């Protein structure tokens, strides 16, 4: 599994644009050939990738918002898939 270190900064890849789509009532990733409609947990992760947040920060933030959920595993699993799909890339911290 391509899960990075906890201090790796996650960013939405430049080929994709994350936005809220009123007509879909969902967050989507737009790219040259189409659109990926995101489920709410995927959106919760991607929304937080502002170019500065590390994997650890994303997990902490989500854990605070959803104290009862098994956040860490879910996020790691999603990050792995999203990276495989090219939706996100990893930046080593400066």
């Amino acid at each position, binding site marked *: 599994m391509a899960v990075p270190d906890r201090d790796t900064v996650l960013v939405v890849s*430049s*080929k994709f*644009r994350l*936005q809220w*789509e009123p*007509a*879909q*009532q*969902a967050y*989507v990733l*737009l*790219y*040259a050939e*189409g*659109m*990926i*409609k*995101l*489920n709410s947990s995927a959106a919760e992760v991607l929304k937080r990738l502002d170019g500065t947040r590390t994997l650890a920060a994303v997990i902490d933030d989500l854990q605070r918002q959803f104290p009862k959920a098994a956040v860490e595993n879910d996020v790691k699993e999603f990050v792995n898939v999203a990276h495989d799909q090219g939706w996100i890339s990893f930046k080593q911290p400066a």
Partner: protein
Amino acid sequence: MTRDGSASNNLPKPLWLCAELTYACPLQCPYCSNPVDFSRQRDTLKTGDWIRVLREARLMGAVQLGFSGGEPLLRRDLEAMVAEGRRLGYYTNLITSAAGLGEERLKALKQAGLDHIQISFQASSRALSDFMAGTEIFEHKLAAARLVKQYGYDIVLNFVVYRDNIDQIDLMLEMAGEVGADYVELANVQYYGWALLNRDRLLPTREQLQRAEAIAHEYQERWKGRMRVFYVIPDYYEERPKACMNGWGSIFLTVAPDGVALPCQAARQLPGIEFPNVRDHSVDWIWNESPAFNRFRGFDWMKEPCRGCPERFKDFGGCRCQAYMLTGDAANTDPVCSLAPRHDVVLSAIATANAAASADDGKRDPRRQDPAVIFRNARNSAKLSA
């Protein structure tokens, strides 16, 4: 186009808006899909009309906006439209021949927020490319492709593939590699508009296709992770038709330079259908209410064999325009389908093209081949649509 099945409602939305900003073009490609009588349409939409169309379509859920033509760069207000499109939340795409794409223009487009650029190529060699384009532009295209990278865009090349260049697919891919392309589309000509006129001249032979496909797949493997290679086969050689436009009035909305709204670029020629104009109607009415956009929606319009065929949910009976062009009735099964009553017209087109190809054999200079090429230009358009 959505990968997630959990749609909020099932009404079709015009997710893709194609704005054909002008039919004018400095190139003369004989495979151009624009209508043969394009020279008759003079009354093009003004900036304000386009902006209204962009806004209305966006409210209805359109997300992809393609600027095409003709050559969209010929419009000086392109940047203004890109800026508005981007502000509205579209993913903005420019589909260009690169004619007129210099540094200044690129800078302005980037500033306006343009997301993506696709540059079309006629061939991998200057001689054939400039012959097909009807003008000397090959070197400029190469320079433009390199320039877009400097402005942070992916290099996306679209090679149009036909009989005279299909044997050079490996050279196209090498060329793409040399300029550092990120994505290459090798798109066999689709036979609409000017391409249909030139079909006997453009359609490759089956042997050519098989070879080309094998080479394309080889490069796909070799360049995995570096450059994406997408190969589009010509549907004439298929057993089943393409799911044209993903179904009539399903996700695509094209607006022609004069404001006529179409379910696809080629539909304008279909007789007995009055296509609405965005000057007279709202985009909402056009998409949801107009008889034209409802004409071939769903499955009730189908005749046999499509009507009872289990594959109709997958291919929608193929392309309405192709059915009309090749059989005279747009409600017929697309004759590409081997089950179509008129599949014979496709077989005979293939036979004619293959015969013409073997007659060419050895004569490599495209200028000398029969039948002669009919270039897409205003003079030929006026002559052919008189």
